[in-house]
């Protein structure tokens, strides 16, 4: 049996004759993509190749990877055995990168929105049309209003090159990176104001005697080599102190769990430091040698007795004392962890300053188990867009608060408010690159207002996140598995091992699919069209990485031959940096009318009937980035809300009940979630994973799964020194649905 009768009878009829000639003509106009090729006998053996040079970006820890590739298809991701960082280990998200790569919902072609912002109607267009439109619109806005009229929201390694183009060369200062203004910018700036450098997460956990965490929930927060350090420390007998309103995964391993009242951490830290000073339990010699302004500091925090802090923090005096003594007894080999995501209450700069000062009081800089920055490879060249002649008109010049200690860029709310009000100047063009401001920036209504008043919105992403619904032009970018960009460097994960350094440039494990392009190409094409062609610093992604590597006598080819990672002898990281200065009292802060010594600034407590909304990480997700991943969502597709068992009983809630959440401003969650009843959270707070409840139906797996916590963060808190957001000052009540 060959041709079916129905079809055969048709093919034999005379009537087909009328159509057959025109058919031949029209099909001849378009070339087939299926062509003659050498015959491959059935059953031919296809080898699986190991492709080296992968650098993960399911999260931003960037583990080094290899890909198992068969016939151009990535079938498995593994840790690069040559890695001295993550080693062969990768996490669930790292493994699930395959599902991100081949997610059918991912962006494939440039598209224009012929519908409304927020209710898009997409039309696939050519790259030519997309780039021409972006360049023409952005250029038009710059010509009419000046470069400041462009707001840039970047995130991730591939966003650096484009945002530097807009910031340096085009000249807009209005850049808001989520990694700074809604995450770790406060930490970095507070440490800069205290020890003159950002801290990273550089505590020597494997070799410490005591690890002190505020809010860190390792195990739920999975960064592989960081977790290896943490677990090695516990294995080696380190004591663990965890300060957290919730019984987190780390709290479950802790020697001391301090279930502190949210927002009061600085009060506790000040009391600990005051206790150490008053009882002469601090390292006076170290403070003498490296400290500045210690006297003013000691005097200024005197009011913070254990008793006062105990009341404020709602924890026993004995527990604060126990923590202080445990730290003092083991000093200087104690790790005061600086944290990572620290934009919590709008008083966070002070807490971060206090952490740095506590490290100083304990003499825990440069010593085994203390704060020890790794000594990684030096000498990589930099690629940067040249600065134009335009002198940027900064929004901080017009603001009541100059946010002198702002991380690089402009505080998000200054940009958003200027866009909405048109004052002090209009902001009419928006470039979003790898960030999802709908789920990173609190108060979604204002963000949407900002977007709606723009003359033009361009988004580049790998997938249709919530923000992409508001794009006029949407550009599909290569994922981290399909591009070159970032060069990961570092040292062996445990300083107790032989000192080594590594250099691992990201290389693609597979060719880009569809019409996805890398950020260097996209930026250069837009730059040319906007008239900045002569300023283009590198012609493509390979040239960029090779140029950077040339500073250390390496190249992509050479590192590929070496297995994707270049190793070289390292340097002992221990010892106190002779330039170290610990600014217990900071004159620059004083000059700008900010508290010059770490100061506790109380925040509102939950109104009656409401609980503070806390959020954190799922070990299986990187917030919203992984919300459409088939494997990860199969394992964890919702964010149950943790409620204290006594509170649940009073509210008539049982474990597994379905609820919606309503915040203090009457904003209701669009979706529902279930209740997790537990004694492991304070009565005045609830907790859920951040990043769920995507509103974009194009994410066919992630859409409306769980509750979008950001939608409930409507009341704004802004850290006065940095302009970064505090996102844990909203309160919710739970309404049982079923």
């Amino acid at each position, binding site marked *: 049996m060959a041709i079916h009768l129905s079809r*055969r009878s048709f093919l034999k009829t005379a009537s087909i004759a009328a159509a057959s000639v*025109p058919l031949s003509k*029209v099909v001849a106009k378009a070339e087939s993509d299926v062509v003659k090729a050498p*015959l491959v006998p059935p059953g031919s053996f296809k080898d699986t190749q190991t492709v080296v040079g992968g650098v993960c970006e399911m999260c931003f820890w960037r583990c080094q990877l290899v890909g198992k590739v068969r016939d151009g298809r*990535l079938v498995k991701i593994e840790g690069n055995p040559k890695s001295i960082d993550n080693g062969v280990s990768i996490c669930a998200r790292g493994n699930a990168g395959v599902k991100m790569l081949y997610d059918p919902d991912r962006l494939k072609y440039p598209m224009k929105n012929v519908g409304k912002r927020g209710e898009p109607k*997409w*039309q696939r267009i050519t790259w030519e049309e997309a780039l021409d439109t972006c360049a023409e619109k952005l250029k038009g806005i710059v010509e009419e209003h000046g470069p400041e009229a462009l707001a840039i929201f970047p995130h991730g390694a591939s966003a650096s090159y484009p945002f530097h183009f807009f910031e340096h060369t085009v000249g807009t200062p209005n850049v808001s990176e989520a990694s700074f203004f809604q995450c770790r910018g406060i930490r970095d700036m507070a440490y800069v104001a205290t020890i003159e450098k950002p801290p990273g997460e550089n505590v020597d956990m494997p070799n410490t005697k005591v690890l002190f965490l505020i809010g860190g929930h390792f195990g739920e927060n999975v960064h592989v080599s960081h977790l290896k350090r943490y677990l090695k420390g516990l294995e080696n007998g380190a004591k663990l102190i965890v300060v957290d309103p919730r019984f987190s995964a780390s709290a479950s391993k802790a020697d001391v769990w301090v279930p502190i009242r949210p927002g009061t951490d600085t009060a506790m830290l000040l009391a600990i430091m005051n206790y150490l000073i008053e009882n002469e339990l601090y390292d006076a010699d170290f403070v003498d040698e490296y400290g500045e302004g210690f006297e003013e500091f000691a005097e200024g925090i005197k009011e913070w007795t254990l008793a006062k802090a105990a009341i404020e923090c709602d924890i026993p005096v004995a527990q604060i004392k126990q923590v202080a003594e445990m730290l003092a007894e083991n000093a200087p080999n104690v790790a005061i962890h600086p944290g990572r995501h620290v934009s919590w209450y709008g008083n966070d700069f002070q807490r971060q300053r206090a952490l740095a000062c506590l490290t100083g009081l304990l003499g825990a800089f440069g010593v085994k188990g203390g704060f020890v920055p790794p000594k990684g490879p030096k000498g990589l060249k930099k690629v940067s867009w040249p600065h134009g002649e335009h002198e940027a008109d900064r929004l901080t010049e017009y603001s009541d608060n100059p946010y002198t200690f702002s991380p690089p860029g402009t505080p998000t709310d200054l940009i958003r408010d200027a866009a909405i009000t048109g004052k002090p100047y209009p902001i009419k063009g928006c470039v979003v690159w790898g960030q999802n401001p709908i789920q990173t920036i609190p108060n979604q209504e204002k963000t949407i207002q900002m977007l709606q008043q723009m003359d033009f919105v361009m988004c580049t992403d790998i997938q249709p996140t919530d923000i992409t619904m508001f794009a006029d032009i949407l550009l599909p970018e290569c994922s981290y598995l399909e591009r070159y960009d970032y060069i990961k460097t570092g040292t062996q994960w445990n300083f107790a091992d032989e000192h080594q350094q590594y250099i691992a440039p990201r290389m693609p494990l597979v060719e880009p*699919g569809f019409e996805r392009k890398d950020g260097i190409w996209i930026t250069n094409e837009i730059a040319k069209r906007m008239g900045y062609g002569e300023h283009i610093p590198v012609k493509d992604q390979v040239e960029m990485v090779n140029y950077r590597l040339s500073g250390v006598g390496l190249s992509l080819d050479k590192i590929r031959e070496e297995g994707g990672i270049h190793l070289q002898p390292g340097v002992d990281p221990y010892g106190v940096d002779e330039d170290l200065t610990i600014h217990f009292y900071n004159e620059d802060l004083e000059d700008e009318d900010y508290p010059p010594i770490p100061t506790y600034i109380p925040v509102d407590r939950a109104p009656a009937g409401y609980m503070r909304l806390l959020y954190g990480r799922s070990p299986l997700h990187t917030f919203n980035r992984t919300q459409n991943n088939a494997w990860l969502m199969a394992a964890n597709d919702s964010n149950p809300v943790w409620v204290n068992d006594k509170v649940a009983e009073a509210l008539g809630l049982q474990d597994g009940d379905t609820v919606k959440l309503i915040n203090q401003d009457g904003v209701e969650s669009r979706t529902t979630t279930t209740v997790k009843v537990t004694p492991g959270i304070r009565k005045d707070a609830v907790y859920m994973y951040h990043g769920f409840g995507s509103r974009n139906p*194009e994410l*066919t797996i992630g859409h409306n799964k769980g509750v979008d916590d950001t939608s409930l963060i409507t009341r704004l808190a802004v850290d006065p020194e940095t302009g970064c957001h505090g996102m844990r000052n909203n309160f919710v009540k739970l309404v049982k649905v079923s």
Partner: protein
Amino acid sequence: MAIHDTDLSSENLDEEAHTLSDVYSFLSLTMRYPNPEFLDRQFLETYVLLLKSLGWQEEAEQIQLLIFSSESCLDELQLEYTRLFINAIPKSTVPPYASVYMDGDGTLQGKTTEKIHDFYRNCGFDIADSSEPPDHIQHQLEFLAAIVKEKRFDEEEQFVKTLFRPWFKRFKEQVLREARQDYYIVSIQLIDFFTKEEQ
């Protein structure tokens, strides 16, 4: 091959293979992103002619309407193609890839993609420079056109039966449910007609 050997003269067989190959090529174009290089008045008129020769009168009239509105037709078809097969709100996208339906968790580049690609190569064909994976419906129809042109009906049948129909049936149902443009409804029905097993 028995039927062809006994029933048809070789000249008839040549002609039939040629026509069927052109039909497959034509169908593959209906599943390609509409662009003015091929989708023009002549294309639509040929479409009408093909439908009329099949006796699909009502469908022919539906396509005929597109010719009258040819100014906006391309734009509308591009929007509909994007909505149906690329990205859309609400959840109306019907991915035109075999692996999404066959490989468990709705993936691109699954085992089915590899099987289909292998089938092409085992027959002496390959995909040249395409942004789409080998199991995109457009490529599957192009492959059928290529193989039928060489009168390799057994391989055609094997491919249709084992690699095309199993996913196409599910794809078809979803397209018929989601499509708003007659063009795609008619095209899917036509692909169904030319590939379905004889009842």
